[in-house]
């Protein structure tokens, strides 16, 4: 396969105006979110959400934090390829992926404050006198926080370049390998633990998602989602900025993704078979239906981009990326909400309220807006050849 010289693709700002339809829509969504949050902080979580004692975790936890952080695994997944498997050719994908991760995680970490009922005590999670090291939540909180800091350090060269602080950048580059390694261990730990959070809920979680193997299932999907997101983002960024799609990178990366996906599906179904839980998938229930939709999303990429020829089609790569993201989203929604429920006869139900959805939407708007501003003003996306020539 022909490979262009990756040295030619050093990152550069995209440039252009910051005021356009996309940024305006984002701003309106963010303002809406701010108004709703004002009500939440003055009148309580119940004033704007539908969470209740049967479903105390709604979409602010499951979507904003759990799914949001999984969708932010692109940086970690690409770094794994570039720095551990020494595939330097993927290097141009690092910065955009890392930027998306940075936003995803910073917002997931910040968004938890909306849902914490007693947020002013949040520092207890890191205070030795309060910490409960047996708590899976503690592990997640500590690791996510550490990872956010590490990612800002990893991303710092972009700002240092922009502001011409080359000495600082040189020093940072020497130690960067350590932060890069940390930036892989930390997400491995907490993405696995996000799955382990289900374990203590015991029989309240349907056996299709309640398993001691859940940390591995969540870790593998987080890595795979990372590649799915990069496929998706690269295609969106290319079309939005009218740039060339990096097909020579996405094509082989998609192949790597399919390999990891195959490993995942073997683990997933072997676990279901060994535990004898697969029967649940054949009951006439919405939960069983949700299970099949989830797994069809994970199977879809084999149909979409199974052949080398199909992988050269950007539309199919894009769809495969979406399928993976949907599968990962459903795995988490199914475990924490759809396949979760109190025992017989409790009568609790949950469906997010409009205001609840608008806050989640606002969070994603912050991400999109931030991505646009930074890619237009800072050296993140690979330099376009035309741009270099001019």
């Amino acid at each position, binding site marked *: 396969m022909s490979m262009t010289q990756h040295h030619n693709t050093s990152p550069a700002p995209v440039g252009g105006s910051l005021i356009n339809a996309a940024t305006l829509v984002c701003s309106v969504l963010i303002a809406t979110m701010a108004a709703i949050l004002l009500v939440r902080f003055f009148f309580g979580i119940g004033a704007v959400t539908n969470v209740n004692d049967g479903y105390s975790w709604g979409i602010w936890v499951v979507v904003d934090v759990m799914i949001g952080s999984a969708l932010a695994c692109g940086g970690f997944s690409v770094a794994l390829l570039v720095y551990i498997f020494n595939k330097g050719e993927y290097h141009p994908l690092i910065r955009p992926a890392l930027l998306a991760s940075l936003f995803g995680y910073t917002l997931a970490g910040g968004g938890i404050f909306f849902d914490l*009922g007693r947020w002013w005590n949040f520092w207890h999670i890191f205070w030795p006198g309060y910490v409960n090291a047996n708590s899976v939540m503690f592990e997640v909180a500590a690791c996510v926080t550490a990872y956010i800091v590490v990612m800002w350090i990893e991303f710092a060269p972009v700002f240092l370049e922009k502001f011409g602080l080359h000495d600082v950048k040189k020093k940072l580059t020497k130690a960067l390998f350590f932060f890069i390694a940390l930036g892989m261990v930390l997400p491995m730990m907490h993405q696995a633990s996000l799955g382990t959070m289900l374990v203590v809920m015991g029989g309240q979680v349907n056996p299709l998602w309640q398993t001691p193997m859940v940390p591995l299932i969540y870790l593998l999907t987080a890595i795979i989602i990372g590649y799915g997101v990069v496929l998706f983002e690269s295609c969106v960024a290319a079309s939005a900025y009218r740039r060339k799609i990096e097909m020579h990178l996405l094509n082989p990366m998609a192949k790597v993704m399919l390999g990891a996906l195959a490993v995942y599906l073997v683990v997933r179904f072997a676990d279901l078979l060994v535990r004898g839980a697969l029967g649940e998938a054949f009951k006439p229930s919405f939960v069983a239906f949700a299970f099949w939709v989830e797994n069809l999303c994970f199977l879809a990429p084999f149909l979409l981009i199974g052949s080398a020829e199909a992988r050269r089609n950007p539309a199919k790569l894009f769809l495969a990326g979406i399928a993976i993201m949907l599968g990962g989203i459903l795995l988490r929604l199914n475990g924490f909400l759809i396949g979760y429920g109190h025992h017989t006869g409790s009568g609790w139900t949950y469906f997010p309220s409009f205001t609840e959805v608008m806050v989640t939407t606002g969070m994603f708007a912050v991400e999109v807006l931030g991505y646009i501003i930074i890619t237009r003003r800072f050296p993140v996306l690979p330099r376009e050849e035309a741009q270099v020539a001019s």
Partner: protein
Amino acid sequence: MDSRRDFLKGVLASSAAITAAAVSPPACARETLSRPVEALGLLYDATLCIGCKACVAACKEVNNNPAEFSTVDKLWDTPLDTSGYTFNLIKMYRNGTMETKDAEVNGYAFMKTSCMHCADPSCVSACPVSAMTKDPVTGIVAYDAGACVGCRYCVVACPFGIPKFQYDSPTGKIGKCELCRHRTKDGHYSACAEVCPTGATLSGRTSDLLLEAKRRLALKPGSITRYPRGKIGGADQSYEGSVGNYLQHVYGEKEYGGTQVLKLSAVNFAKVGQPDLPPTSSAATSETIQHSLYGGLIMPLAVLGALSFIAKKNVHDEDDSPANTGGEK
């Protein structure tokens, strides 16, 4: 092809490591905890309960909780479930014509809903900030609002649906039964047991309550026996009554490693809202997984060391950075 093979090798190797840690009986397996010797609790005997709800009112009063209304006229406290403001509730089972008390078919029955004070509580394991704690002597599962961050992992984790949150307040707390631990210094015990006119709710050490429960199960239904009231080991307030048609099951004796609140019923426990639970706790499973993966931070540090080593080698190769490549041009 190479990239794929290498990558798969990596994925398989790390999968194998986690699988080994999660599946093999690990050195740091955390067994299900059992009750402290002096554990305090309650025995609720549904066959003795007359549904007067004196315990519900007393619980509200001693915990300074407001009334909750479910009727239009709002005349008195009518909660439909436990909540952030209702820690104890008597619920009713109804079937068919509701003719016979404690009959599963065409009958009715009562069931108390309140914290079971598990030997190995999920809420205590889940809480990241030690706001839920289990007293090492009394075994009471207590809540400290001053420590709580309001994440509500306890609410989600509890198999009995007991910790509840006050969603209507910007400074909401978790609400749950703490076995009236705030009243023991005045010589009081659980208010629900203090006021129960029939001894359906009985206070005492769980070991004593378990003996009493088993004594009742051994009696012939319909025969006459003495039922203590209030507190086992307290003032004698016992009376004679006829023996109910018990199921041969002390609910809470073994569930999740045992609970300190025990229950007797004539109607199937699942039908009166008591979940069918295994003898091992999910807290034990969860902590075994956590300790296997992260115990002493051994595995994370080993992985970090290996990745640092590999990354150091690979970072230099290609990108000491765009600034450098730019300089060369």
